[in-house]
């Protein structure tokens, strides 16, 4: 029997969520996360030489936030958030948001979606090589971002996406990691910091 990549190499993810008020961080969430099958799907295209020929297309460079996560989604087969923020305004509001939000498509079970979806970019300056086999992504959602969501919804899920593994003309991303977390009703009173660490063995 062939063991999967995550079990062979012991790939693990860990997420902490912090509220930031007046520059002071408060830890509100601290759990492991799930590396989903999209990560391996992208690697198979890289190592089979049938995807993009540019390595940065295989990098995790964007994320989604959502409002209807659940523990049942923390499985390898998850391909998207359950209730991802579905408009640009949901991410950046009307203020001076720090988020760089882009539209693109998404791979789900080897099929590309054809309706635009919103992703927030992770600046490369926030991607840290912690050691030879550990990468940390720091996602900063400032006071002006993700406020006043429809129906006063609370943020409770996040996903990391690989950029564009098949080099599609319209960037088509694939979910690499997912985490459901306890409800956070985002307001302009505080910012959020997500620190997501992925260890490759």
């Amino acid at each position, binding site marked *: 029997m062939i063991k999967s990549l995550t079990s062979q190499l012991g790939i693990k993810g860990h997420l902490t969520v912090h509220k930031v008020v007046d520059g002071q961080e408060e830890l509100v969430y601290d759990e492991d996360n799930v590396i989903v*099958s999209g990560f*391996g*799907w992208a*690697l198979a295209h890289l190592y*089979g030489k049938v995807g*993009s020929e540019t390595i940065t297309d295989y990098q995790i460079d964007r994320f989604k936030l959502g409002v209807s996560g659940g523990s049942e989604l923390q499985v390898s087969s998850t391909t998207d958030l359950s209730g991802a923020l579905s408009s640009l305004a949901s991410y950046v509001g009307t203020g001076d948001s720090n988020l760089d939000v882009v539209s693109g498509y998404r791979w789900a079970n080897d099929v590309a979606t054809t309706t635009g979806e919103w992703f927030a970019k992770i600046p490369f300056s926030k991607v840290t090589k912690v050691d*030879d086999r550990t*990468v940390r992504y720091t996602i900063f959602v400032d006071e002006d971002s993700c406020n006043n969501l429809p129906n006063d919804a609370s943020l409770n899920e996040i996903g990391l996406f690989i950029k564009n593994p098949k080099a599609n003309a319209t960037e088509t991303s694939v979910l690499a990691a997912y985490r459901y977390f306890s409800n956070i009703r985002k307001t302009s009173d505080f910012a959020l910091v997500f620190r997501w660490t992925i260890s490759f063995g």
Partner: protein
Amino acid sequence: MLLKGFGDILTSVMTVNPALADLPTASSILDTSNYTFQAVTFGKDSQGFTNHSHVVSSTQYVDGVEASGASSYDSGIFTIINYGSNLANGASSYVTSAYYLQFSSTYNSVPNDPSPLDDRLERGSTISTNLSNYQYTSALPDLGHYSNPALDSQLSSIWNKVGGFPPSDASDYYFYDNTSSFTFSGQVSSYFNANGLMDKNGYLTFNPKSIQPATARGTEASGGALLVSSTSVPVSSGRVSVSIVLQDGDACTLAAFGGVKHVGIYCLDLASLLSSGLLPPYDWDALNNTRKYKLVATVTTLDDILFHRDFAALGYSGFQTVLNQNVGTGFTYGGPNINLTFDFK
């Protein structure tokens, strides 16, 4: 087994700076070939590098005549002594097994157990110490796997003792049974060397083509190790297979030197190459290979995967006929095929 080296590569993939795309002299660092599989090696138990056809002793025989000594490393003739069988049993194949009766008291033929921390196939020394009086002893390789001495200017004259691959042209071999009786002779030629696929350190390059159907293993063998898919192993399922065909003299000599118990898969060691001042692209050149490699995956078996027998009913010799065979374009006969499947999901 995927190794820590693969974790190193994935971390590099995730953290290489996209801004390099704007630097003409460095943009090729972002080419995926710097991060994908680039080489394969073959290995075995460490003590095997001083046994089998590596042996040089006063009991060696060349040209069917008993020699009085090492005889200049058997006059360049590749010698196979089938310690396990004799003519009375009709055996003409060099038969290896998990333990060797002829060496059982002195020879531990078990390869080292695989570890995710491995950075070479065999952790123990793989120097053929029985060649220690050779004039270029410092050139004797300790790579952890089989070298390819035919391309090494200091070792090519004793390829028949260093192992594990013959030159590209036809080289003579003599086969003896366990009573040291001459059995038959023939010639071996390296398919890998004839096609410029392996450097002197035993690194077999990958075919640069993208993934191919499994039926292409024969037609594309001249390009090196091949990425293959099939209906049972589609890329869309997150799986990729690597196919390596051992054929012609390569299979024969590997079997006679003690077989194959490790197979290693390598990516480029980009950090090491860059620190040496070598910028991509890193073109393949078997005679002057500047590439440096990082071991990312291994397969280890207790038994020799080239274990074989004769098919006496049809008069086929395992050594002469089955191993020393070209796969042909249709991949319908000859040459053992090694197929390694990676499940990335």
